[in-house]
């Protein structure tokens, strides 16, 4: 009898939990303000404790980093030396073209990275889950960080602000599935959109304007910065690392690697676009 009573009590509890969860998912998916406020309040309340604990465990995480990443350092070093040599040559070649290009951009009145001001912020934590690519920065609406702002680091584009509370903001990284960035290729200037892939650090290049364009491995991608875009023009985004051309398929599979080391960010800059709508989703 007792077993029967327990069984009959479990079902309504499970049903209630499932219905509540489905309601929460639906409401949050529709951008319900109450859920957003609850999220922000909870995040703000727990932030000082998180910061304290993170600081206290800094030595441990540093040792862990040293142990887990030491193998890759030598290879990284060699690769970086080769890249420096290559880029120095490229810089000389590009110098002649850049003046001409800047004049054309000014004539077209497209906002580029030189036109924007920014807010420097510190990365306070990475993503807590396994299937999302976000970081949290220590500046929020109080410092002028609003949803939609592009985020850059020294090497190039990092992502964009997708949520901001008073003192912190969440930045979705460019390798997060679902965040596409409108880019142009370095040489052929073909427009395309980067597409993050779950669990993978390489992005796929989709919607290539002309799939037969001669895109090469090593070529850089810059933000396209077309009218109304969420990112200013000419911010370096990624480098082509692999091109798979299957026979019979029109579009090659182009894989690109973000220029910024997205797992090792410390400081980033949120850009204030001069004439953009910060809540736009367009790449």
């Amino acid at each position, binding site marked *: 009898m*007792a077993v029967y009573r*327990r069984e009959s*009590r*479990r079902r309504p*509890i*499970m049903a209630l*939990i*499932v219905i*509540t*969860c*489905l*309601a*929460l*998912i639906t*409401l*949050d*998916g529709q951008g319900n303000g109450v*859920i957003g406020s*609850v*999220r922000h309040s*909870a*995040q703000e309340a*727990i932030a000082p*404790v*998180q*910061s304290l*604990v*993170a600081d206290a*465990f800094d030595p*441990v*995480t540093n040792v*862990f*980093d040293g142990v*887990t990443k030491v193998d890759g350092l030598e290879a990284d070093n060699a690769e970086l030396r080769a890249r420096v040599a290559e880029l120095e040559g490229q810089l000389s070649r590009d110098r002649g073209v850049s003046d001409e290009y800047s004049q054309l951009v000014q004539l077209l009145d497209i906002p580029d990275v030189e036109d924007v001001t920014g807010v420097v912020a510190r990365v306070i*934590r*990475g*993503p*807590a*889950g*396994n*299937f*999302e690519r*976000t970081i949290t920065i220590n500046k929020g609406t109080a410092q002028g960080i609003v949803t939609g702002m592009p985020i850059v680091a020294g090497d190039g584009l990092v992502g964009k602000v*997708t*949520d901001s509370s008073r003192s912190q903001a*969440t930045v*979705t990284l460019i390798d*997060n*599935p*679902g965040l596409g960035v409108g880019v142009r290729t370095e040489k052929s200037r073909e427009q395309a959109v980067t597409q*993050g*892939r*779950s*669990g*993978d*650090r390489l992005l796929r290049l989709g919607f290539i304007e002309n799939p037969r364009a001669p895109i090469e491995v090593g070529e850089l991608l810059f933000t396209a910065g077309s009218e109304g875009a969420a990112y200013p023009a000419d911010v370096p985004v990624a480098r082509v690392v692999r091109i798979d051309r299957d026979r019979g398929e029109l579009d090659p599979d182009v894989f690109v690697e973000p220029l910024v080391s997205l*797992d090792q960010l410390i400081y980033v800059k949120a850009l204030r676009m001069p004439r953009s709508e910060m809540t736009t989703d367009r790449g």
Partner: protein
Amino acid sequence: MRWIRFFLLIVSLVVIQTAIFPSLRVFGAVPDLLLVATVAVAYERGPEAGAVFGFVAGAAIDVFLASPMGVSALAFALTGYGIGIFQSGLVRSSRWMAPILGGIGGLVGGFLWICIASIAGQDDLFATASFRILVTAAIYDALVAFLVFPFARWACGEPDFAHR
């Protein structure tokens, strides 16, 4: 008193999960401390407590994730319920029970999370790389279960055999 201990357990694990483990990734994966705690509570106190604890713990971690609120809550509640049903047939004394259940719970909970998040509109989760991360995270869950299970056992208090 038990609810206060559960509250402390959830808050502590949320802080550790969000402040420390993002820097302790192994092959891109982090353990899911709240999921392991849900498995532990379900193991100690049965399906009902496992489901309710899973719901609250999942909702707590959902606050810090970019995925829609309720995805982890539902995945953890279902995992807690399932593990709670499953545990009634288990022999209790094995010291390997924590990592085994932690690993199984990590796999089941992670898979449920992927399914629910995909239905909720998260892009591109059914990919080979996702399943590689899922397995790595489950192994990590099994390891952290050695630490989380005693903490959860403390929160559960004295064994209550009525739930069986």
